[in-house]
């Protein structure tokens, strides 16, 4: 099977140094809009470096995630209004983020088994098998979830990005 050439859409240079004042304002906007939600998530450098060290990895894709699903009624409410959902829907569950490596053509490193061309779609079950295989020929790709959300963990800092009460 011949590998199809895939376009380069990622270079590893994505993301820009950002202004601290704008960061403080934008994180405040988020907290105001989502009271009760986690404001940040911390990942130790060990797992980040492990993902970045995977062959071909050009960066991290950071997925938003929730540990609890919403039901049909709540889904209907979402369609009507996110505001109503929050106030009277009282949905449960906590916000998380999940990180994976990504390669030059934009695909995530969930399926990079040596015999398959990059980006070749695989069934989820097949991917899970490849990822958990402990053999040398099938290097499992790493998906990581954060250990320390804020608020809710011992490491939470107080600064311009996490609270409005720090002097401006």
């Amino acid at each position, binding site marked *: 099977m011949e590998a199809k050439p895939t376009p380069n859409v990622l270079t590893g240079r994505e993301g820009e140094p950002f202004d601290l004042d704008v960061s403080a304002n934008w994180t405040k906007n988020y907290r105001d809009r989502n009271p009760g939600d986690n404001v940040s998530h911390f990942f*130790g450098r060990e797992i980040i470096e492990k993902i970045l060290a995977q062959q071909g990895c050009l960066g991290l894709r950071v997925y938003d995630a*929730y540990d609890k699903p919403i039901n049909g009624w709540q889904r209907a409410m979402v369609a009507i209004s996110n505001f109503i959902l929050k106030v009277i829907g009282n949905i449960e569950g906590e916000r998380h983020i999940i990180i994976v490596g990504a390669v030059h053509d934009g695909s995530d490193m969930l399926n990079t088994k040596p015999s398959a061309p990059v980006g070749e779609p695989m069934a989820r079950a097949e991917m899970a098998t490849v990822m958990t295989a402990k053999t040398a020929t099938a290097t499992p790709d790493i*998906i990581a979830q954060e250990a320390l959300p804020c608020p809710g963990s011992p490491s939470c800092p107080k600064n311009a990005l996490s609270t409005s009460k720090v002097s401006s």
Partner: protein
Amino acid sequence: MEKSTTPVLTGKEGEEFDLHKAASWTKNHRERNADHPHSHFFGKEILEKILSQEGCVGLRFYHAHSKSASENGGEQHLIIVGSKADGTDMLNTASAQKLSRDEMKGIAKAHDVVGQEALPCPGSPGCPKNFMTDHTIS
């Protein structure tokens, strides 16, 4: 005044995660927030730049929104900063003192990098199609 700096971060935080759970948790997010980005991509260059700051033990990802609660429109973003062993963010590492935001800004410019994502999905080239982005893919 010196505050005690007990190490609360070690660099080992974060755990390898199950693929099926990752698929279902990301689906939960898309159903709750159909109009929000479902992921943000950061290139290796800025991640390594932040990690290479002296004393950095990992990355903290902040949720952010470009418009205040009273304004319409805008979009969700992620902002990343380095953190140190005592749990503080690397916004003011030139001094252990509490600094005002203006002071921090002066110092942060010279020393610490705050990163913002270039590529949200959907909405940028390179957005992948997999079961973390679309639950109809099994």
